[in-house]
């Protein structure tokens, strides 16, 4: 497997002086080719800031982004973005088909090829017959399908999605999630998706990266050991899914002790004193697991002084990055 995206020590500070606000800092991770990686973090933690830096829409104030080995400066050619706000991302004066064709015009694709590629992309998202309509004539979920088709028609090496399903109702969200899983399987696409929805990140991802509160860093990286073909009902009720989402929830909430039964994550000796995620299991009734906040050895205040030095600890495939 080759590395598609390599983000190293990425940081971004908005403004300067007194009003400076550091949204993300020292973010590092990679995305392998063919992989669907989910980044999960609370609202306002800097997910869009991160994606905009990867897409070259703004220059990060620190660190580098490499796409297929090449440092990103400006918007890379080989990339497409699906935004959350589909109604504003689509162009209301263009028909659905023209919206999908639009980016291809600037890529010098001939009119015939544009038409066939747009038709093909619309077919992928199940909108083969809606080409002549205007976006406002479609439901929200269908509009987001159009923007997914538009991104896919460009055949990007990397598809970035910024909370793509956050603005649709729950039922439609399930449909769109399954659509994304099907399409990326058929096209073998590489996808980086950010979301604030824990369940969604686990359901969709091959791997989940958990972001901390701002300034955001990657606090954990969890491989998702779920079968490649997933189902909204059976997958979500499976033990593996439930325990993973608990894991993510604990990591997200940092210091708050969470209680949830997680049978297949067996207890492990707390071990060294600098253990970031303290797991106390077996001793508690109903197999409860207590997770305490990452402790900062120097000031003792959980998670406060995290900044520079990151230590990565591998443990049952769960990589926990934490300050020390």
């Amino acid at each position, binding site marked *: 497997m080759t590395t598609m995206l390599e983000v190293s020590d990425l940081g971004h500070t908005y403004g300067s002086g007194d009003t400076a606000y550091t949204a993300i800092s020292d973010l590092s991770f990679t995305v392998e080719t063919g992989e669907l990686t989910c980044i999960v973090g609370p609202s306002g933690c800097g997910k869009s800031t991160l994606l905009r830096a990867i897409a070259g829409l703004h220059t990060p104030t620190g660190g580098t982004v490499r796409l297929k080995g090449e440092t990103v400066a400006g918007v890379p050619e080989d990339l497409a*973005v699906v935004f*959350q706000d589909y109604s504003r*991302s689509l162009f209301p*004066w*263009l028909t659905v088909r023209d919206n999908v064709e639009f980016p291809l*015009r600037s890529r010098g694709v001939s009119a015939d090829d544009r038409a066939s590629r747009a038709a093909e992309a619309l077919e992928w998202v199940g909108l083969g017959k809606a080409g002549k309509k205007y976006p406002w004539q479609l439901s929200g979920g269908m509009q987001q399908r159009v923007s997914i088709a538009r991104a896919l028609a460009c055949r990007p090496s990397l598809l970035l999605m910024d909370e793509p399903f956050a*603005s649709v109702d729950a039922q439609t969200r399930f449909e769109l999630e399954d659509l994304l899983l099907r399409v990326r399987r058929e096209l073998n696409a590489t996808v980086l998706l950010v979301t604030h929805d824990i369940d969604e990140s686990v359901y969709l991802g091959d791997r989940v990266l958990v972001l901390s509160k701002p300034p955001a860093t990657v606090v954990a990286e969890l491989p998702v050991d779920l079968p490649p073909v997933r189902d909204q009902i059976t997958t979500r009720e499976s033990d593996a899914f439930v325990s993973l989402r608990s894991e993510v929830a604990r990591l997200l909430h940092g210091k708050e002790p969470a209680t949830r039964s997680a049978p297949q994550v067996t207890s492990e000796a707390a071990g060294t004193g600098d253990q970031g995620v303290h797991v106390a299991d077996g001793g508690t009734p109903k197999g409860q697991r207590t997770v305490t906040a990452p402790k900062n050895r120097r000031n003792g205040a959980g998670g406060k002084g995290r900044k520079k030095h990151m230590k990565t600890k591998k443990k049952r495939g769960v990589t926990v990055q934490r300050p020390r």
Partner: protein
Amino acid sequence: MSEQPRRRALGFLERWLVFAGAVVVWEIVTRISDSVFFPPPSKIVQFCAELWFVAEPTQLFLADTVYEDILPSLARALGGWLITAVVGISLGLALGRSRIAYEYLNPLVTFLRSVPPPALIPVFMVAFGIGAQMQIATIVFGALWPVLLNSVDGARSVDRVKTDTARSFRISRTEWIRMVVFPAALPKIFAGLRTSLAISLILMVMSELVSSNHGIGYRIQLSQNTFSFDTMWAWLVLLGALGYLLNNALLALERRMLGWQPKREAAPATAKAGG
């Protein structure tokens, strides 16, 4: 199926009922007062017919004055308006998308558009002499601002999600202007174009009143000077009719070009922003 045409016919009747009523009242009042300055509409119509139509097939039954006064006047008004449209839209879109250019040029624009265009007629007379050039200059100077300012406004209305979308797809500059900025600004541009059209007609007449040897404005001036008030009224009616027809033609074009907009009855699905 029959509902739609019937409603349209009713709307048409309603609209013209007020107009017809006004004409009838005007007819009665002018007949009773019997003033030479205010002829009844029926007489004005008669004069119109005599003034502009002849039994001459080679001239398409139109009198000489149609070719010597009306068409040249119209050509100047529409020519000036078209120049206004091209200059106003292109300059407006550029200013609307460039913060720096806007900040530099805004004071100048505000200053220039505060000058009443008729006050510049003498200046243009000195600069261009008496004739079409001076008239078109007056029209352009007066009619430019609504198009320009509306285009600026429209171009600025392109939201950040669209800017980001276009940038992330590496949309080329010409496609960006042609297929994003221009259509986004088009509703505003049309509002500006309609105002400009009205101003163009006004300034066309005004510049001809002041200095010309032909044209609609000149004819009005002449008939006033020779006390032929019936003729004067005929020309005034013509101006009203021209304004009405041109405005309607522009509205029809607008409806065609803005056909993509959601109809008022249809509720568009909108996304919540956030995250």
